[in-house]
């Protein structure tokens, strides 16, 4: 870490005792980013913006929301009608959940494409999978809070999954509910947990960033090769700050476009019907961001040996995330980026299409042909991770890698002489 001579005496006094200014300077000013990162690298920053947006809007919603089965629905409507700009805060929070997932899913697929989970970023990736799991739990509990029909029945379906656990399943479900059905106790604890888990996510995000900024780790890049010197890098500020800011604003245009013009497009109309334990909606569907996992859950409709269909579905669903957690140890091919792995690149796009098919099946009723399509897609999901990737470790012959990051970027005749252009950026720091 280069030490900085701060001009302001107060800053200097603080920094010599608690070097927060030096840390920030090191991590967000001079932190070297590969100069060839494309806009897909902005989705980390975008996700951070969404997390802060969700925490802030959620805080103000919590000031007006009442977690009680008799008043939850009306208190949300009161926010929409009688709280100053309550409609805006609530619609931003509602759509923010969807766009947080959009940002994070793009972030994850970017990592898959460019091999960002490989050595030395295994722990960085695994922390990221933990964040995704926490987000899913948080989003699920948040969706229960308005206490509409889909809130209630979604909560009933998902909490009932735990009853698939042998022997103790039923007891666990009763314990989760705080009673013998999804009821007031459930709503209360979901509200408490929904309030606190975002701060847990925030803490794990700090770990995620710390793992990224760890010495010798740093950001991956589209070439998937290591930086070899200052000519391969640009300082985070101003290069990435301005690029990320532009990307964030573009993302906000889409996100707020939905929020202001079609705020209920990504939701389900049934959630504007107050929860009624006596009336089951014809089709219970989760929010769109859970649909691929929901499809995997429902794909297992047959018993495997002593594992019944229900438990099998739950195992498959959690297995779909667990397989991501251990991905760095499955894909051991030495080349990171799909740009130089023609076979992996094909299978990556097949996987993307496969996940989209799973999402589509998840939204359909559990009848043919959707069930069969879902089973094929579920099979392929696991086949990709558990068979194809290990197979590629042995058979894939990568295209020749460029020798450095700077070289391919300048190919095709940059305006500046190679020496001047490559040395310049980092000298600014």
């Amino acid at each position, binding site marked *: 870490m280069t030490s900085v001579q701060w001009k302001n005496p107060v800053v200097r006094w603080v920094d010599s005792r608690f070097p927060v200014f030096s840390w920030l300077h090191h991590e967000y000013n001079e932190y070297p980013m590969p*100069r060839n990162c*494309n806009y*897909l690298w902005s989705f980390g920053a975008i996700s951070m913006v969404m997390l802060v947006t969700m925490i802030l809007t959620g805080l103000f919603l919590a000031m007006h929301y009442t977690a009680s089965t008799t008043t939850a629905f*009306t208190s949300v*409507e009161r926010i*929409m*009608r009688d709280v100053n700009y309550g*409609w*805006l805060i609530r*619609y931003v929070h509602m759509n923010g959940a969807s766009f947080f997932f*959009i940002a994070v*899913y*793009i972030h994850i*697929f*970017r990592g898959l494409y460019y091999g960002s989970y490989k050595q030395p970023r295994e722990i960085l990736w695994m922390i990221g999978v933990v964040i995704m799991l926490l987000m899913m739990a948080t989003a699920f509990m948040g969706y229960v809070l308005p206490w509409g029909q889909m809130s209630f029945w979604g909560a009933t379906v998902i909490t009932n999954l735990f009853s698939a656990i042998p022997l103790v399943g039923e007891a666990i479900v009763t314990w989760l509910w705080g009673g013998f059905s999804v009821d007031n106790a459930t709503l209360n604890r979901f509200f408490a947990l929904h309030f606190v888990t975002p701060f847990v996510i925030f803490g794990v995000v700090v770990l995620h960033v710390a793992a990224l900024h760890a010495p010798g780790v740093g950001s991956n890049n589209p070439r998937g090769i290591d930086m070899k010197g200052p000519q391969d890098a*640009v300082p985070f500020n*101003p*290069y990435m700050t*301005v*690029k990320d*800011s*532009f990307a964030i*604003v*573009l993302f*906000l*245009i*889409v996100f*707020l*476009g939905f*929020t*202001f*013009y079609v*705020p*209920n*497009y*990504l939701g*389900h*109309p*049934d959630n*504007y*019907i*107050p929860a009624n334990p006596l009336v089951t909606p*014809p*089709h219970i*569907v989760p929010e*769109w*961001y859970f*649909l691929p996992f929901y499809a995997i859950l429902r794909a297992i409709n047959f018993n495997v040996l002593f594992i019944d269909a229900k438990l099998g579905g739950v195992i498959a669903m959690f297995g779909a995330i667990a397989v991501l957690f251990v991905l760095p140890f499955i894909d051991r091919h030495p080349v990171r980026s799909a740009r130089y792995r023609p076979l992996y690149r094909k299978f990556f796009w097949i996987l*993307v299409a496969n996940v*989209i098919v799973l*999402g*589509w099946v*998840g*939204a*359909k*009723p559990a009848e043919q042909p959707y069930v069969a399509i879902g089973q094929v897609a579920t099979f392929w999901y696991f086949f990709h991770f558990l068979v194809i990737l290990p197979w590629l470790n042995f058979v894939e012959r990568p295209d020749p890698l460029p020798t450095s990051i700077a070289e391919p*970027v300048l190919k095709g005749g940059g305006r*500046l002489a190679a020496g001047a*252009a490559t040395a*310049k950026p980092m000298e600014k720091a």
Partner: protein
Amino acid sequence: MLKMLSRATVAVALLATGPALAAGEIPTPPAQTWTHAGLFGTFDRAAAQRGFQVYKEVCSACHAMNLLSYRNLRQLGFSEPQVAAIAAQFEITAGPNDEGNMFQRPGIAADRFRSPFANEQAARYANNGAYPPDLSVITKARKYGEDYIYGLLVGYKDPPAGFVLGDGMYYNEYYPGHQIAMAPPINEGQVTYADGTSNSVSQMAKDVTVFLTWAGEPYLEARKQTGAKVMLFLLVLAGMLYAVKRKVWADVH
């Protein structure tokens, strides 16, 4: 190109699953033209006021609107004395008073819309076992929203040959399953409009649908107008940031 493609594919595909969420056998009602649709849509206040009259004189016999208060009607262009006069037409149960008794008094602007039934049981008892749903957010609680509500109101037909209707049920083209317990709610000439507008079934259905849409989304106009300002601001900001980005990165590319 590939990276752009990948981003677009994922985003579009994830968004595209949205409308599929409500998959089910809901007949598609024909799309209507609404003044509140579109980027700069505003409610047709005259229609909404007429629609309130239809609700008051027809729908409110069975359907509550618990989330609305009479004061909300100010948004539709009713003046303060008009709202007070409307509220005063209803006898509201208030209290308890100093002696601990509930009592009746004329409604005031702050009162919620008076419900036709004391509770769900009373509503079902009076309606052959069916429960007329609360209409406060009905256009948001149904797929196809206001097009569905309008379609339902004008969609009563004779059942096709061979269609077996349950006892006391009616055939409706746009109701899921086509069997609805609600009798055709609006009849030709049922409401007399003060402004002389035609009181055909389709006109009344359209007016009450505008009113119900407003009731479910009273801040629709503020939302769209704020949205326009936010979008304009973000587009200008994006343009400026792009220019700065180009300048900062000029020596790298």
